[in-house]
């Protein structure tokens, strides 16, 4: 990938994105202030447990819902300010691949009919023959070959993996610049999942498509977003964000560490060793309607320190080089005690938490040990 694309403006920019839903129990902030970017040919992976706001973020990014605060910008233009024509172009450029390959296809349409509907709607093909040829080409792109044996099939005649490939092919019909994949591989079998991810990776590299990729599976995130970035979300906020090899190889936030530690490796010897791993203080996620004070993760966090973590909400701060951002008091304090003399690079828009007494106490080294 060239420097040109890296230097160019991001394809998609989420700026202070908030999505508050009104419920009977009062307003629920499903997404509470998310700042992220996706660049052409790059992958941004959102990971987290159910209810952490990753799908809500994706839906707002796709323009399906209107955020209650903040903005979604596509090629530097806020979605809210787009003219009707710009919005049509945006809708073509950004495509969404759903989680469930069984529900996302109309059961009464053949594959050819599904694939050509968008083409016809946007006037991209002149006649039937051309539409069919284009559909065949799309099927080849997603490795459904020979296309002739799939074009006239109905969804019920296809397996889950084949259906998900048809979904991908449909989204590619519009020559998208950005694909938003919402758990698009989670319902597939392992072997099928790898081959679909390999196909998607080829699209990313050959067609320079940017990806906002949502998954709860860190191994999938690692595999697909190795050259990209991972943002770990917890209860509507990003708690750790950075280049994939760093986040996976050297996680800083206790939540990221817990997620990585919870992955089962296919090796009984490792699994035995894993049983001794540190446990969370609670397995249950707090409700969004009743968020804990301070850091939302503190009731489950193994590094929890009373008085520090339950007092104020930690800010998502840049830590060290390499563009890593972490929202954790303990990590932040460890860093400050470690290199108090170093000037922290100023990050535009980042807030420093109020200095705590603990930061000046040289005996308090838990944070340093934890982040080491």
């Amino acid at each position, binding site marked *: 990938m060239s420097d040109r694309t890296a230097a160019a403006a991001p394809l998609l920019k989420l700026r202070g994105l908030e999505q508050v839903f009104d419920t009977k129990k009062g307003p629920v902030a499903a997404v509470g202030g998310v700042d992220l970017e996706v660049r052409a040919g790059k992958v941004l992976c959102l990971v987290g447990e159910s209810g952490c706001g990753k799908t809500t973020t994706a839906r707002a990014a796709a323009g399906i819902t209107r955020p209650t605060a903040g903005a979604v910008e596509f090629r530097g233009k806020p979605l809210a300010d787009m003219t009707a024509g710009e919005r049509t172009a945006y809708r073509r450029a950004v495509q969404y691949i759903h989680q469930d390959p069984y529900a996302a296809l109309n059961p009464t349409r053949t594959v050819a009919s599904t694939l050509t509907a968008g083409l016809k709607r946007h006037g991209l093909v002149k006649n039937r023959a051309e539409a069919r040829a284009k559909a065949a080409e799309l099927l080849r792109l997603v490795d459904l070959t020979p296309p002739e044996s799939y074009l006239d099939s109905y969804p019920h005649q296809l397996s889950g993996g*084949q259906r998900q490939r048809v979904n991908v092919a449909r989204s590619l019909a519009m020559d998208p610049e950005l694909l938003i994949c919402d758990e698009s591989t989670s319902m597939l*079998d392992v072997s099928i999942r790898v081959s679909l991810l*390999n196909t998607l990776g080829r699209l990313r590299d050959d067609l320079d498509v940017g990806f906002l990729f949502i998954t709860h599976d860190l*191994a999938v995130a690692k595999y697909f977003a190795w050259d990209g970035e991972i943002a770990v979300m917890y209860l509507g906020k990003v708690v750790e964000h950075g280049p994939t090899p760093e986040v996976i190889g050297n996680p800083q936030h206790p939540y990221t560490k817990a997620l990585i530690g*919870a992955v089962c*490796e296919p090796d009984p*010897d490792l699994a035995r060793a894993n049983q001794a791993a540190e446990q969370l203080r609670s397995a249950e996620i707090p409700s969004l309607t009743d968020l804990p004070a301070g850091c939302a993760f503190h009731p489950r966090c193994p590094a929890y320190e009373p008085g520090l973590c339950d007092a104020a909400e930690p800010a998502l701060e840049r830590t060290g080089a390499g563009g890593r951002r972490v929202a954790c008091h303990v990590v932040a304090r460890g860093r400050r005690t470690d290199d108090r003399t170093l000037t922290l690079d100023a990050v535009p828009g980042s807030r420093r938490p109020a200095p705590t007494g603990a930061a000046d106490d040289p005996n308090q080294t838990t944070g340093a040990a934890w982040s080491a």
Partner: protein
Amino acid sequence: MSDPILSVRDLAIAYRTGRKESVTAVSGVDLDLYEGQSLALVGESGCGKTTLGLGLLRLLPGLGEITSGSLTYRLKDGGRADLLKMKKEQLRRFRWNEAAMVFQGAMNAFNPVIRIGDHFADTLRDHSDGRRWTKAAVEARAGELLETVRLDPDRVLQSYPHELSGGMKQRALIALAIALDPQVLVLDEPTTALDLLTQRSIVQQLHELRKKFGFTMVFITHDLGLAAELADRVATMYAGRVIETGSARDIFHGPKHPYTAGLINAVMPVKGERPALESIPGYPPSLKAMPEGCAFNPRCAFASDECRRSRVELELLTERPLAMDHAVACRHHDQVRFQRKQKENANV
């Protein structure tokens, strides 16, 4: 060690698809399971693992039918019984007392309009032989079980299923399955559809429960990481047959069937470097159009003309006690080289 607790011989299960038509979902399964073992049935969707699991308790849905074979259990009183010869009333007493099932999809396994407490009462009363369960006795037993899975009995027993999270439901379901202290527990995809950290806590609790109650476990999963975590033994299924079986170490450290090796190689590691993974080409066959010969041959790199003509039975590779033998149904097993790099595991 005495007899196996469960012996399956030449089991075949078919689903009726029409007046005179049926498809065979499981065939030729032989299994011996000894007390306290935990066996993982692994394979892709549609390989027959759930059908086999349901078959072990004769819980097949209406159109499913065990067409041949035998299923012999050693009962709590030391006697032996062939499940296939049991009458309805005997089956009722057998299920939950001797063997129980945790169904797939904790989300939907409870009746949504019945409180969790009443599920316990119904199960205990229906499947107990002769024992009367008073309200207090039900509450005491259910409370004890829920506490072992770290749920608050006062809250959970009064709750309707929708008031609990997925992880809580799954734990309640496991507690319900072991309510009558069965010897064998069959779990169908016990962690699928749960969050990662919830999965981890379920795994931890299954370990604790096994230690405490000592039941024998058969669990069905497509997640090889989970199998490595929970199983002493693994049986890989493909197109309705067991194609490789062995101890967890044999299977995960040296799989001999190209399909098992492919499955393990397709698991994405979270630790270490990012390897380039290979997938198994193609898709599993339809039960209606099974390929001639070895069912895996269209997807297999080693397939020869012989494989396309006929399949082979399980061949013993390494003999081990308590039915932990490593056996594989592949004539090219000596060509399978397992390549999962050990290096990337070194820095764990």
